[in-house]
């Protein structure tokens, strides 16, 4: 809600009080209700026209006024409803039903440091209502934005509850600096740093935003273009997400709500590996071929066809449950408002044994100390608990240990103990004994004071803290492979990520001139921001028994700690001027100084400007009779990115801890860069929003062009200098794209309503300047590459042209045509960024029933299927089994297939069409044979709900009861051969996206729920 309205409301309110005492004569009784025909409106303003007298309704919506004249006009207003004027026409009792003012509610949105009327905003901003995200069994609200907002690409990296997600607003702006947006919750800059230290392979361990209960959210505003984000300066380049949580309303009775749901989830598709006999047969074939080629002769497996099959992968999966409870109360008196909410969520992973549990509590409170001074607070407290489990590139992960072991090998030894093979652990041992607890405590709190010098001039000062602590206790007992040699090992981590923010904002909002043709909305302010990261860890090995698990009782113990702090000081200002509701021009400027920047480049300046033309206000457009609303926007600006510069990255340092013989040592660790500074993103945005067909069809279109320069790059330097890379501002990346959203009210007749929302976003990413290629990913296999002229997240592989039907050998493209297959023949064969993403929602309502379904889609991204790579290996991996796909291998001349002849003969790897390069040699891991199209369309949610009719709820003394059934991820249309195309197993590094590697797939969930409001 715009504070402006609140203030006017209050001003009127006090005026009324003073006038009330002197009034007398005729008495008129009445009641003000909402347009639903029953809800009384408490605290509505009633003004007697011409008498400058006013009253408020009581909690039943009733009022009594005394007036001298028998016929008076009453002006009745209430926030969120259209103001209505009614003549008493001699009546002594009247009932007024106010109409909900949809326009007003939707038009005022939260933007950077202010609220603005959407009609006049030049920037590209999307808002999503909290109500649209409720009751979906996913922990983080950012995850729930998938397919709901244009220009935002969201995907889960795995199906682990509370697990990490990939969230990009208009593409990847950076290579080494973070590409995650800035999250602000009720004015608090919050930390999006993953606090979990337990190594889970190469995946980012958790989604820190999952600490926020989505049920507490009123609205989410996503600032996308520079016009909207420049005010956040060096924090804004990746976009900004502003979350406003629920608050009470003045003069409203307590509304108590209770919601709960229960869901069960399972995998849509499970792992399938070759049987024991198939595995033995394939192994023997490879051994025979290898010997034929001149390689070592290894004894064959006897009786391959009678080998047993041990199905490990089915042991991994379970029917996972999700339970959620929410309880909240909101309301307000004449001087204060409150919202209190409590939530509990427990979600199991569909792959044993990980789970996620969250308790949240929130208290939001506002109080008018005087008519001019308002104070308030927003506090949330969260406790999360995860039982984490490592996977992807960790061979001792649960999935690895079930998926990769050859299926003819028994799970248990003859003596009944767990059998272990190769680098892997025993999957059942892991499921039963994995003990990695991560408990997070998070406080996000804000306290503010707001003083109105004049109705149009306000100063707000706000003090915020985000304190995120994580406490992890891990114990690896002697039944697990990792605990065997150490006789049990334990580790304990305590991590704190803290953000302190203080800000002052002076706001001036005024309309003046004849007919209020001129409107000004301006502000100046400053912020001081401190970010602290601290960690302490202790590890111990050697335990007397598996019942003792504390580090303190280990035979050998060691500890470590780290601390890093950075500070940011900023000044900013923004102003917009609107003429005659038609033309708006705005501008903003921010100056940032950061302790992270080099001494030569400490201050950064970020300007922006925009222009909006509400063409529908022009007579000549109005006369066309086509547009109900038409708005054209253009904007340009600069925003920055300093995330990713380590707190001390600009300094020349020798690190300590280079110890030897229990003596302390130091060694050079980084070269000084006094010029180090933020990345700058220049963005131009043009957009048009229009509504046609009697407000039934709203279409919004944006085109943007972003160009980021001074990329923070770890530029590789000659190794002989003693350094591997040097962090400097070098390089450029471009993101261009368009976004369209369509909202259509297809049918709105009486009891039946059908609306459709569709959105599509396209982003094209291109690295424009880079010091040299940077290859990385897949545990040193360097499959991902950053290369000038290509998009980030590109895959660099040998391109397999075909398998020679005569020889059965794979033939690769000889890119440099030198007749040999060498490293120079790797080429970029695709990337993991989708071309298009979007969503389609259809909502139907008939009387008390609502039905909706939502599709999410993405197109054009590639997935590196590492499971395929490891399990279709021609026997090169002595300890790993096969996928059924290996059975398609070439066997005899004339066979046409893309899986080459099985052999591990080590010949000259430079020769093309030779058995050396079928599964090993130079192309050991780099063939595009394992790269797949990851496009998909998914029926993300389908929902049917029923709301009890008012007649019944009234009898039950309830105000609302709704029950629903919902299904999530019911069906996915894709050509991808792995379990699930929404996957990114190497998400620990943003430049190694798009791998599928022993990862938990997205669950399919069925859910039942009920919401009750008292």
């Amino acid at each position: 809600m715009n504070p402006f309205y609140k203030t006017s409301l209050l001003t009127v309110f006090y005026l009324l009080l003073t006038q009330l005492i002197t009034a007398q004569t005729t008495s008129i009784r009445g009641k003000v209700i909402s347009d639903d025909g029953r809800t009384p409106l408490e605290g509505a303003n009633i003004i007697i026209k011409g008498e400058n007298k006013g009253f408020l309704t009581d909690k039943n919506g009733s009022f009594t006024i005394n007036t001298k004249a028998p016929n008076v006009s009453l002006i009745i207003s209430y926030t969120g409803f259209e103001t209505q004027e009614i003549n008493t026409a001699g009546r002594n009792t009247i009932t007024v039903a106010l109409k909900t003012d949809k326009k007003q509610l939707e038009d005022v949105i939260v933007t950077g440091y202010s609220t603005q009327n959407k009609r006049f905003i030049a920037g590209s901003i999307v808002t999503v209502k909290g109500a649209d995200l409720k009751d979906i069994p996913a922990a983080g609200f950012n995850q729930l934005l998938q397919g709901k907002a244009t220009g935002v690409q969201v995907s889960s990296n795995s199906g682990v509850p509370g697990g990490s997600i990939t969230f990009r607003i208009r593409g990847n702006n950076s290579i080494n600096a973070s590409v995650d947006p800035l999250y602000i919750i009720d004015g608090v800059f919050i930390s999006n740093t993953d606090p979990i230290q337990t190594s889970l392979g190469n995946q980012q361990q958790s989604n820190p935003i999952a600490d926020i209960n989505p049920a507490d959210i009123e609205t989410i505003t996503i600032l996308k273009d520079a016009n909207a984000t420049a005010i956040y300066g060096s924090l804004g380049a990746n976009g900004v997400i502003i979350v406003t949580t629920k608050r009470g309303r003045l003069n409203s009775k307590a509304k108590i709500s209770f919601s709960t749901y229960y869901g069960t989830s399972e995998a849509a598709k499970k792992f399938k590996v070759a049987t024991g006999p198939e595995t033995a047969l394939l192994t023997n074939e490879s051994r025979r071929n290898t010997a034929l080629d001149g390689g070592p002769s290894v004894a064959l497996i006897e009786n391959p066809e009678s080998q047993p099959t041990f199905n490990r992968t089915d042991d991994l999966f379970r029917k996972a449950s999700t339970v959620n409870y929410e309880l909240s109360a909101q309301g307000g008196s004449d001087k204060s408002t409150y919202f209190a909410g409590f939530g509990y969520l427990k979600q199991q992973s569909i792959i044993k044994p990980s789970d996620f549990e969250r308790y949240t509590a929130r208290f939001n409170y506002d109080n008018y100390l005087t008519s001019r001074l308002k104070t308030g607070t927003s506090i949330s407290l969260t406790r999360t608990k995860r039982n984490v489990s490592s996977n992807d590139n960790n061979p001792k992960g649960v999935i690895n240990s079930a998926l990769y072991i050859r299926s003819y090998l028994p799970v248990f030894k003859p003596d009944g103990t767990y059998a272990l093979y190769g680098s892997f652990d025993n999957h059942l041992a892991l499921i039963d004994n994995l003990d990695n607890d991560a408990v997070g405590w998070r406080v996000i709190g804000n306290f503010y004071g707001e003083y109105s010098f004049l109705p149009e001039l306000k100063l707000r000062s706000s003090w915020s803290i985000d304190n995120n602590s994580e406490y992890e206790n891990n114990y690896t007992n002697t039944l697990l492979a990792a605990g065997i040699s150490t006789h049990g090992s334990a580790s304990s981590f305590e991590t704190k990520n803290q953000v302190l923010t203080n800000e002052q904002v002076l706001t001036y909002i005024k309309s003046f001139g004849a007919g209020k043709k001129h409107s000004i909305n301006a502000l100046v302010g400053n912020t001081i921001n401190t970010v602290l990261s601290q960690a302490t860890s202790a590890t111990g090995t050697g335990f007397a028994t598996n019942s003792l698990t504390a580090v303190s009782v280990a035979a050998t113990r060691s500890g470590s700690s780290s601390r890093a702090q950075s500070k940011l000081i900023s000044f900013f200002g923004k102003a917009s001027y609107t003429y005659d509701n038609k033309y708006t021009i705005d501008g903003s400027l921010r100056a940032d100084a950061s302790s992270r920047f080099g001494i030569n480049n400490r201050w950064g300046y970020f300007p922006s400007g925009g222009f909006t033309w509400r063409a529908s206000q022009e007579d000549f457009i109005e006369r066309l009779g086509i547009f109900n609303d038409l708005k054209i926007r253009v904007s340009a600006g600069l925003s920055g990115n300093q995330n990713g510069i380590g707190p001390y990255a600009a300094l020349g340092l020798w690190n300590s801890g280079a110890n030897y013989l229990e003596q302390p040592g130091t060694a050079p660790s980084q070269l000084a860069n006094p010029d180090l500074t933020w990345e700058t993103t220049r963005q131009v945005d043009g957009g048009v929003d229009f509504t046609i067909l009697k407000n039934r069809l709203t279409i919004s279109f944006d085109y943007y062009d972003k160009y980021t320069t001074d990329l923070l790059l770890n530029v590789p330097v000659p190794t002989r200098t003693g350094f591997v890379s040097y962090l400097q501002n070098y390089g450029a990346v471009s993101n261009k794209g368009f976004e369209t959203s369509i909202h259509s009210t297809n049918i709105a007749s009486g009891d039946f309503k059908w609306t459709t929302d569709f959105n599509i976003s396209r982003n094209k990413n291109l690295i424009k300047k880079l010091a040299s290629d940077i290859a990385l990913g897949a545990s040193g296999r360097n499959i991902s590459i950053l290369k000038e002229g290509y998009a980030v997240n590109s895959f660099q592989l040998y391109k397999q042209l075909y398998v020679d039907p005569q020889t059965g050998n794979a033939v690769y493209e000889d890119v440099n045509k030198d007749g040999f297959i060498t490293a120079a023949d790797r080429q970029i064969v695709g990337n993991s960024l989708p071309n298009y993403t979007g969503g389609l929602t259809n909502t139907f309502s008939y009387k008390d029933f609502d039905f909706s379904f939502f599709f999410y889609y993405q197109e054009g991204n590639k997935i590196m299927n590492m499971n395929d790579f490891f399990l279709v290996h021609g026997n090169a991996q002595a300890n790993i089994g096969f996928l059924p796909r290996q059975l398609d291998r070439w066997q005899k001349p004339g066979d046409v297939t893309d899986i080459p002849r099985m052999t591990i003969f080590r010949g000259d790897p430079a020769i093309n069409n030779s058995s050396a390069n079928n599964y090993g040699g130079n192309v050991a891991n780099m063939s595009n044979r394992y790269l797949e199209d990851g496009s998909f369309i998914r029926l993300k949610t389908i929902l049917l709900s029923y709301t009890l009719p008012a007649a019944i709820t009234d009898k039950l003394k309830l105000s609302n009861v709704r029950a629903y059934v919902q299904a999530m991820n019911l069906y996915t249309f894709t050509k991808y051969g792995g379990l699930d195309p929404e996957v990114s197993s190497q998400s620990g590094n943003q430049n190694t996206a798009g791998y599928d590697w022993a990862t938990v797939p997205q669950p399919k969930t069925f859910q039942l729920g009920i919401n009750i409001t008292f």
Partner: protein
Amino acid sequence: MKPIKLTSLLILAPLLFFTSCKKYLEEIPDDALASQNAIVDVSTARAAIIGAYDGVQGYYAGNYPTLGTMPADNVVFNGTLSQYLQLDQNAIPADNVTTVATYQGIYKTINTVNSVIAYVPGLNDPLLSEAEKNKILGEAYFIRALGYFDLGRGWGGVQLQLQPTTDLSSAKGIKRSTLSQVYDQVLADLIQAETLLPDDATTRNRAQKSTARALRARLHLYRGEWASAEKYATQVILNTKYRLTPAYAGFFTAPFLSTESIFELTFSPNDKNSFWNLWYPSSAGGQFTLKPSATFVSKVTDPSIGGGRKALIAGTSPDSYGVLYNTTSSSTDPSYVIRLAEMYLIRAEARAQLDDYTGALEDLNVIRSRAGVPDFSSLSKVDILKAIEDENSIEFAFEAHRWFDLVRTRRAGEVLGITNQNYWLFPIPLSDVLSDPDVIQNPGY
């Protein structure tokens, strides 16, 4: 408090911050030193040389021994990580993780000792005695010699970086040297080290005069300077500080630092070496990525070839695994850099080359008899050299020897079948080829 006062406070607060802004924005770490304060007194000088040893530990713990074994015939790939498969198959791309990490580790260490060599002589700390200064400098020269020696035998004539890197422009213009120039530098540094270093009767995990001599013996062997090789090997053999352990397994049995050890890098519970993890099967908590080859297992278990050296393996064929690095519960295996046994075999080879067959056989049989295998006898130079080569292969099976020996004697083609001599050197890391205009890749990569 009246509201107006609160307001003025709120306005004042940022103003106050603004004035002290510059100071406010200065943040320094509590776990790192500013470069200009890195070597300024006795404690920082000591810390710097310790940091250099830590650097050697870094690449000798696992990587260098892997490079010295895996491309040859005693150790084969048995895991999932491609870098080891590539080494095993001698199909090593320029971004092979192990070669890149080793190359980086060595140059990082060289940069540390270059700083010691550049800054320690100028220190005027009364607490830093001349003797200690010489010792620190001697250690720095030794570590640099070891670094360039290991670069030379792996990558050929590398670039000689002899000054600390203070900024990137200072490093420009240094081209690759020839292997001979690299070895000249190693020799020069070893001569300095031998002059500056002390010698005592116990130290085996820091450089000493005799450590420098031992490395020098090896350098001369690699250069085919037989007389010098014999001379320096003899000097070390005659030092009473060193004795072969009675049983072969003695040198890799805790508490380590055996009498046979000339230079080993000590690890501890706070400074772990988990190289064993790559050798042990998962039933013992390892990854089993590196596996003794079937031919090696059959040789080492043959009483006439392996003898006591069968202690290098455990388990039963075909799942035998290497146990040279065996501290599975504590991860404190040392890196074995130079052992006395090598001095005998260096002298044996040098003597054979100098046609002193009796002397050669004497030294060879010292090693054989310690392992409990019968004496070797022959009067054929070729046979004796072959016997020494085979002895090296078994004696140093899992240390950084076999591959470099076969390359040094130019027999990698004959013995291993790697006829393309380009593959006898490791590739220069891809990132160097891309970022360094002064470097040229080794041919064939």
